């Protein structure tokens, strides 16, 4: 990590440690789950240039699997979350395998269509509880020891999952594998001519992103003790796009900031009712018009070293 990243990362750890004593833990956990979800999404759109419009499928179905296995089979929470992540990976493999054959808008449409199939399945299948979802999921004991019904214990578990996920994304981006991904983003034909089998790289990136989205979804279902259709709906896919864009596409901290901004708005503006969507839309328009690189992208562009900021809005 370079110096600026390291300082920001340490600052983030401090904030994570202090925040639950100042702010409401459940709210913070929601922010963290969405931040991880947005990081996973950013891995794909920011670094490979693949705009998926179906990430809710991974997020939501992982939530269902975690909720179901923990509630019905009595699995411990850590196993449930891992199964959720595995669900994301499996679905990601299938959907990714089909979708990476096309680029741009076609890729987005294929992911959207396939995620709608997942949504329809979640609506119809008996085990997902239809529009009632799966309710009263027990949080259980982490490793059989830590009682997760204590909000603080749950918070630090979620924070740990988030930090691990974040470090994983960081590692992927800064590995030789990540360099190839960026090469594909910038110029796919050239990457092919250099001898890279770009489809395999894209598929692996897709699966990694789906797995992390599943990890976030599974964790969220334990935090709220429920899994519902909200998380598999296409609006959720749109929301994660919004979070990533507002925070800064292709920046490592951008999705976290974006998720925090959007979730905070939804939370504290809830009393304005339908105005939330309008305010959200307004902010999105302002963001696109005035700082196209997102909050973090813009900060890096102003204060960071020359050429450090992502180009942004390349799609």
């Amino acid at each position, binding site marked *: 990590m370079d110096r600026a990243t390291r300082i920001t990362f340490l600052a983030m750890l401090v904030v994570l440690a202090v925040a639950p004593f100042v702010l409401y833990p459940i709210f913070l956990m929601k922010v963290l789950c969405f931040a991880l979800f947005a990081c996973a999404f950013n891995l794909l759109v920011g670094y490979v240039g693949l705009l998926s419009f179906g990430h809710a499928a991974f997020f939501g179905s992982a939530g269902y699997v975690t909720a179901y296995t923990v509630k019905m089979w009595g699995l411990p929470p850590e196993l449930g979350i891992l199964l959720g992540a595995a669900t994301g990976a499996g679905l990601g493999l299938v959907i990714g395998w089909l979708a990476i054959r096309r680029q741009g808008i076609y890729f987005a449409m294929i992911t959207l269509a396939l995620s709608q199939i997942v949504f329809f399945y979640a609506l119809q299948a*008996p085990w997902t509880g239809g529009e009632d*979802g799966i309710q009263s999921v027990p949080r259980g004991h982490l490793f059989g020891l830590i009682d997760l019904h204590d909000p603080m214990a749950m918070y630090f578990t979620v924070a740990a999952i988030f930090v691990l996920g974040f470090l994983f994304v960081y590692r992927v981006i800064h590995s030789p594998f990540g360099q190839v991904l960026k090469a594909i983003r910038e110029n796919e034909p050239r990457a092919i001519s250099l001898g890279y089998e770009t489809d395999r790289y894209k598929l692996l990136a897709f699966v990694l992103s789906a797995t992390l989205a599943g990890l976030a979804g599974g964790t969220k279902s334990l935090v*709220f*003790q*429920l899994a519902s259709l909200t998380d598999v709906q296409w609006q959720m896919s749109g929301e994660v796009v919004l979070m990533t864009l507002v925070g800064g596409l292709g920046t490592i901290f951008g999705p976290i900031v974006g998720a925090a901004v959007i979730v905070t708005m939804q939370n504290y503006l809830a009393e304005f*009712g339908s105005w939330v969507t309008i305010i959200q839309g307004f902010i999105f328009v302002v963001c696109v018009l005035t700082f196209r690189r997102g909050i973090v992208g813009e900060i890096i562009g102003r204060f960071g070293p020359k050429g450090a900021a992502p180009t942004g809005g390349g799609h």
Partner: protein
Amino acid sequence: MKLKQALLAGAASVLFAGGASAQISGDVVKLGILNDQSSLYADITGQGSVAAARMAVEDFGGTVNGKKIEIVFADHQNKPDVGSNVARQWYDRDGVDAIVDVPTSSVALAIAAVSKEKNKAFLNSGAASSDLTGKSCQTTTVHWTYDTIALSKGTGGAVVKAGGDSWYFLTADYAFGHALERDTGDVVKAAGGKVLGQVRHPLNTSDFSSFLLQAQASKAKVVGLANAGGDTINSIKQASEFGIVAGGQKLAGLLVFVNDIHALGLQTAQGLQLTEAFYWDQNDETRAFSTRFEAIMKKKPSMIQAGVYGVVLHYLKAIKEVNSDEGEKVVAQMKKMPANDFMTKNAVLREDGRLVRDMYLFEVKKPSESKGPWDYYKPIRTIPGNEAYRPLKDGGCPFVKG
């Protein structure tokens, strides 16, 4: 010295708090109205429910055993995660003692679980799911106004008795629609009617033409609409365009509210039979309540909003008796007292949390029969509570002893 004083003060306050916790926490009774403030259920719940709760508090005198009564509200956007987030925040941080209303079954089921965990009362008027007092019942849940069983029994059974003995269902193709179709079908058969068939339509459909043609071709006397919200509105509109009612078939709406009729207009909705727990123009008491309500909200109350008034009033009466705001205690007391208000007469709150009230079958008037705005229903039949609701032993509620 300063430290010692601070410690003493701290200890005293802990003791004091310990003494007070057996009574009303925070010296205030705080009611949180959690419903849809912006989307499809905002009209039948929303600010109207908040106004109804305020009216109940006002009629109760504004205080209970000398403690102030406060009301807060929020929008759950029909999302269970948003709803349970608000609920937890209210219970953990803001000292809310009971959550009221909560339409949308998925959100209601989530709030029921959170309320039980925090030992707070959950006073539901808005949600339809009979699971709230069935397999997902909680000792802190009160389900006040209606449920899917009462609607299907009411409309199904009564329509058959009124001569509509052959049915064809138009069903939304998801769990809720299937359940509604199954329950109503059972009632129809039990009452001696026949189910000729059914057609399933996808959720949120805009084109019902092929489904309605099948319903028309079935020659069934009654077309049952086992769907909700926008789907019901669309199917009623298009049924009117196809001349289904004009052709002699009757429409039976299984989840329709007076506000939907207001939106549809009598020309379109005429002849529709439906079940409600309340209609503003039933007697002097309901008219008096509705006039007061209308002065604030500029429209007539839905049965859900009227129910919010009733459940808040009953809750406050129970708090007065037990002088505590712990969820289990208050709800247990609510079950001991008969419920009485302008729309509820000596109704019993059962062990599983279900209020057993009389339901009413109505038919929507023809435009020529209506005397003006909001004059929409003519009463067909009163369905006694114990006929309308599921028997206690059949619910599968774990804490109800058979």
